[in-house]
């Protein structure tokens, strides 16, 4: 009974964070029931995650941009344009793929930094600066694809990023072995780090959750990792896209929660004047956040181009709005200083699950837009309500 009470109070305190996971769970369960399990099939989940990839990385960067009270509308066409540049480098200039990718990422950083300079140095509202960028890069994308139209990419390595899977080594009962090993490693790493954290807290004589709750937490999260691994291993295993997204999320989660840089970003978002008077260089933080956004836009362009195995004239259309929606569903606040990158990824998965589920059910595209809009509004209303209650 005590355990139950503790769980209840934990849930109450963290309702906003858990709410999102619960929502994702409800959405997935609903679609699974409605589609007789088709939604949760290995093939569908694998596809769903691959489709989420290029939006998820944008949402991660966008979360930090919104945290510092700015916005970047240019990322969609920056992704499209840089994807096209990648295609040109690979198929027309003959640059090998291991050089193309770093070149594109660096170009992305340059573009992002340029936005940052417009915003921080010249004081142009980011909405306007990035709107200008959006138009410019849309034009640039048309310019480079004008003569050829769609540029087909024949580089297998590059195309594998969006379509390939990590090697299997061997099949075990029809399951992908390396993926299973990675999943198991992830579980072990998770349990190890959580136990370590707990030990450290005890060493500092801080309060920790009771052993029962702690065990339940460990088992619960491990079970989810195991289940997802098992599903994916039943198809082709982890795709390169999933691996890349997981790496990006892990890196950004670490930076935003555990480092001085991360603290500075949230401080600037929370109160820029106070941040300045605390000795934080607000301009520098703005450059860094926009630079990272540009890099992730480039990565998004690479993922998308590689998935289509070609650069098209309309690549990147509306990516920015999908990314912004994912970030808001994930709990970022436009008042600044609040929002997690992990939330943004869950937000992206929620939105992609809706699309995927409704496609399986054959819901008309008109209704799909309305339902996704409704979910976005509901998520933000829930956010505002729970925050009001706490604050």
């Amino acid at each position: 009974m005590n355990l139950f009470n503790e769980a209840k109070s934990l849930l109450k305190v963290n309702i906003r964070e858990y709410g999102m996971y619960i929502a994702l769970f409800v959405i997935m369960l609903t679609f699974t029931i409605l589609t007789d399990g088709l939604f949760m099939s290995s093939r569908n989940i694998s596809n769903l995650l691959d489709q989420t990839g290029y939006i998820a990385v944008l949402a991660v960067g966008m979360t930090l941009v919104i945290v510092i009270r700015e916005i970047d509308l240019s990322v969609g066409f920056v992704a499209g344009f840089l994807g096209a540049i990648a295609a040109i480098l690979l198929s027309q200039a003959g640059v090998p793929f291991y050089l193309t990718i770093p070149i594109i990422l660096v170009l992305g950083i340059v573009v992002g930094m340029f936005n940052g300079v417009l915003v921080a140095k010249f004081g142009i509202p980011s909405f306007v600066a990035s709107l200008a960028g959006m138009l410019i890069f849309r034009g640039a994308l048309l310019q480079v694809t004008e003569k050829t139209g769609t540029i087909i990419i024949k580089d297998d390595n590059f195309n594998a990023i969006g379509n390939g899977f990590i090697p299997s080594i061997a099949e075990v009962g029809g399951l992908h072995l390396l993926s299973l090993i990675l999943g198991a490693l992830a579980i072990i790493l998770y349990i190890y780090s959580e136990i370590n954290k707990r030990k450290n807290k005890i060493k500092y004589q801080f309060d920790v959750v009771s052993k029962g709750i702690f065990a339940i937490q460990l088992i619960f999260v491990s079970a989810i990792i195991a289940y997802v691994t098992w599903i994916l291993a039943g198809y082709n295993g982890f795709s390169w896209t999933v691996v890349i997204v997981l790496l990006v999320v892990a890196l950004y989660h670490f930076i935003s929660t555990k480092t001085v840089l991360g603290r500075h970003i949230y401080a600037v978002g929370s109160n820029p004047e106070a941040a300045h008077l605390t000795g934080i260089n607000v301009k520098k933080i703005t450059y860094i956040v926009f630079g990272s956004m540009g890099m992730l836009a480039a990565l998004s362009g690479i993922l998308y181009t590689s998935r289509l195995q070609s650069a098209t004239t309309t690549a990147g259309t509306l990516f920015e709005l999908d990314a912004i929606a994912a970030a808001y569903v994930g709990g970022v606040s436009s008042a600044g200083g609040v929002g997690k990158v992990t939330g943004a990824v869950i937000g992206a998965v929620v939105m992609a699950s809706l699309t995927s589920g409704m496609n399986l059910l054959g819901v008309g595209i008109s209704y799909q837009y309305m339902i996704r809009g409704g979910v976005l509004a509901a998520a933000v209303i829930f956010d505002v309500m729970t925050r009001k209650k706490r604050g």
Partner: protein
Amino acid sequence: MSEYILEMNNISKEFTGVKALTDVSFKVEKGEIHCLIGENGAGKSTLMKVLSGVYPFGTYTGDIVFEGKVQQFGEISDSVKAGIAIIYQELALFPDLTVYENIFAGNEVKRGGVIDWNRTIVKANDMLKKVGLDVNPEVLIKDLGVGKQQLVEIAKALSKDVKLLILDEPTAALNENDSENLLELLRELKKQGITCIMISHKLKEVISIADRATVIRDGRTICTLEGSKGEITESTIIKNMVGREIDDIYPKRPDKKFGDKILELNNWSAYDTQLGRYVVKNVNLHVKKGEIVGIAGLMGSGRTELAQSIFGNPKSYKLQGDLFVDGLPQKFSHTSDAIKAGIAYVTEDRKGDGLFLAQDIKSNVVAANLKGISRNGVINENEEVKIANEYKASMHVKAPSVEQLVGKLSGGNQQKVSLGKWLFVGPKLLILDEPTRGIDVGAKFEIYTIMNKLISEGMSIIMISSELGEVLGMSDRVYVMAEGALKGELSIEEATQENIMQLATL
């Protein structure tokens, strides 16, 4: 005996536990110029906000009788309808609109629901003539000087058939010439039968213009002085304004030992390019190790600007003069440079630019010294909680845990967090800007005690304060500032409330 146009009887007003006004009575005769005087925070503005309906009927106790009728103003527009107009210190004009649009903003000249701009301009011209302002009504407000903007505000009030005009420190931002013109205008309006309440800190003005003057102190009416009986003199006003006894709310510091100069400013000036004027003029000042230096002065006298110009110049003023820290010349290009040199600045406006209200206590405490809890840029979160808990305990911050959001703390506890944040940096010189504004007596005492403890540990403090009692009770030496310049330096032995007030209102 002429009749009263306004009687405020036994007004009391409370803000969550803090009494701002206690049983205040305030009577204004028809056709007089009545000055309302008191220290910062005495309750003058609160009283005027009760009168104008900013604090609506029901949130205070007591009666407001205006023109013989008991009034129950539910909102500002009710008091405007009754004929009361208030002009605040910060002008409420639209800088990008024209003079005539501003005069009739909210009171548009309409014909059948459509604005008649031609008639608006004609009427605006009339109003401008009334206040003696010779400008084209089609110029934009932002192209006028502050003095003329003030007159536009008055013209705006007159356009609404005002019977009682309230001016909150109308000359605070004006030069002498403009001030004189304004006072002349008030005398002119008086002849036309308009009653006027003026809040002012400048005693000379009060003496020259007031028919009667009411002094408020600590939320209570102290007295009403009659000009006709020769009661309005500098000495009577000052005596009544500051009258409070300084008792032992200021903890004593037994051993005073001063070391070398920690900070020195020579001919230090700061020019604000946005305002187009010097906010700090030719300041020469020094602070010794182990010393609390008080900077007294009224609001807007340039004290905060001086502090910020020392602390890395976040507002990007153009600086002139020399700054020495520990005898070495320094030029700070960012606040982080000043912090590195050992200076910390606790801001006056803790909610506005001091704290991260949406973050918890621990993040705020470590915000200025993340290096102290991190290795290679990675933060040790356990160390963070430990340090935050230490400060929470040593400064008696009342909160359930260090995970409490700072926005939910009381003012006193917020101030302690703000102080803790800077103590964790370990500065040599701590600049405190209004360290006890808006916090209760108990918390004040705790903050004074912390200040004394820091001094005994070898820190130096500059304390900027509008509260004379605090300046006299805590400082070792006092500088008095007015209009961006130092008007005098007083040792604590020679400083009194009267001579500080004299220098500050010079």
